[in-house]
Every structure is written in structure tokens, then in C-alpha cells.
């Protein structure tokens, strides 16, 4: 079965620090990749997505992620975090072809940014 691993369960950073959250998946075929964010008291919303083409994708609020097929990874990055980035971040993977609607989520990474 497909699995998604987010290695960092809780990350604490100071404002202006750089961020990288890891995401690895197990499915060897075509994938669609997503990062979702859940701000305190709000519902899950899409941060960025990869379907095809340029493996470096840019999302909202200065976030970006790089798809490295050989490493089965889709790490999330931001060069300088803000206090408002405090949230929970989820990586999700869809099997892109025969079971395109099947989504598997990681267990999330809680990011706390200290002002």
C-alpha cells in the first residue's frame, strides 16, 4: 500500500529562519503531489501542487517544493518564515494513473514560528 512519511513531527523556528519539511512516498508509478496547510482553527487548504513539468513548484505565501523522482521526495521549503506560518503541514500523494483518485496523506508536521 502507498505510504507517505513526514519525518519531522514538530519543528520550532524563529522568524526569518529557513524552513525545509521532508516528505517521502513509496509509490513507484506516476504521482500527483500536494502540500496542504491547516492554520489554527481553520480547515485544510492547498499550499502547492505538482502534476507534471518543472519539478520545482511554487505555491502561495512564498512556499516552494521540489519533486525528486529518484528519491521519492517532495520537500517543502521557504527561505524565511514568518510568525503567521505557524500551522500544521500535510504532504499528500495521489497515484496518478490507474488509481488517480486515491489520496494518501502523511501524518503532518506542526510548525511553530517564534516571533
Amino acid at each position: 500500500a502507498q505510504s507517505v512519511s513526514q519525518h519531522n513531527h514538530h519543528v520550532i523556528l524563529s522568524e526569518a529562519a529557513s524552513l525545509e519539511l521532508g516528505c517521502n512516498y513509496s509509490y513507484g508509478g506516476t504521482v500527483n503531489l500536494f502540500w496542504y496547510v491547516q492554520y489554527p482553527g481553520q480547515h485544510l487548504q492547498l499550499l502547492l501542487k505538482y502534476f507534471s513539468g518543472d519539478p520545482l513548484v511554487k505555491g502561495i505565501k512564498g512556499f516552494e517544493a521540489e519533486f525528486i523522482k529518484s528519491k521519492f521526495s517532495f520537500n517543502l521549503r521557504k527561505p524565511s518564515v514568518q510568525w503567521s506560518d505557524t500551522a500544521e503541514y500535510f504532504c499528500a500523494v495521489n497515484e496518478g494513473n490507474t488509481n488517480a483518485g486515491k489520496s494518501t496523506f502523511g501524518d503532518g508536521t506542526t510548525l511553530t514560528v517564534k516571533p
Partner: protein
Amino acid sequence: EAGVVQSPRYKIIEKKQPVAFWCNPISGHNTLYWYLQNLGQGPELLIRYENEEAVDDSQLPKDRFSAERLKGVDSTLKIQPAELGDSAVYLCASSLGTSGSYNEQFFGPGTRLTVL
């Protein structure tokens, strides 16, 4: 454009009681998902609908859980009877479809269920 609507937002029941959750997806979205999210974990798919057809219900505990999506629009998820371990957040999401960029899911606020 309205987002995914779920009700109720919170529900507290005693074990062995029935409970139902309702979801109205974004207009025009053919695919509807129900997820269960336990504290400290990511969403886990319970069932996925393509229009009115349940195309993936392999993770739905069918002895106590049921779902329907009549007319291919809104959907109801039911638990009967509820157990203590069912306490979780139940999320509904929808997408235009499942191929390519249609795969992007939009989530509702969820229903937080507490079983006493």
C-alpha cells in the same frame, strides 16, 4: 464561490448512539471524499464517490459505517452504533475529478465527533 459545507461542526453523543454527518461539495465537483482524521495524524480516506457511485470504499468499516450520495451532489456519512474509538474529525472534500489538475481537493471545516 462557496466552499465545501459540512454540518454539524461539533457532535457529542454517547456510545451505541447513531450519528450522521452531512456534506455539500463545491458546485460542479464530481468527486466527493470522506476522510477520518485522528489527533496527530493525517486524513485517512473512508470513501470516495464519482458522482453517485462509490468507487473506493475499501477503508470504510461497513459493519457500522454507511454513506450515500444521492443525485451525485451532497452526501451523508452515518455511524450506527458509535463506539468510543470513533471520536475523531470527519472531513469532507471535493474535486472536479481525479485526473491531472482536476485532482486538487477542497476541504470542508470538518465535524468533530466526541463519543462518550
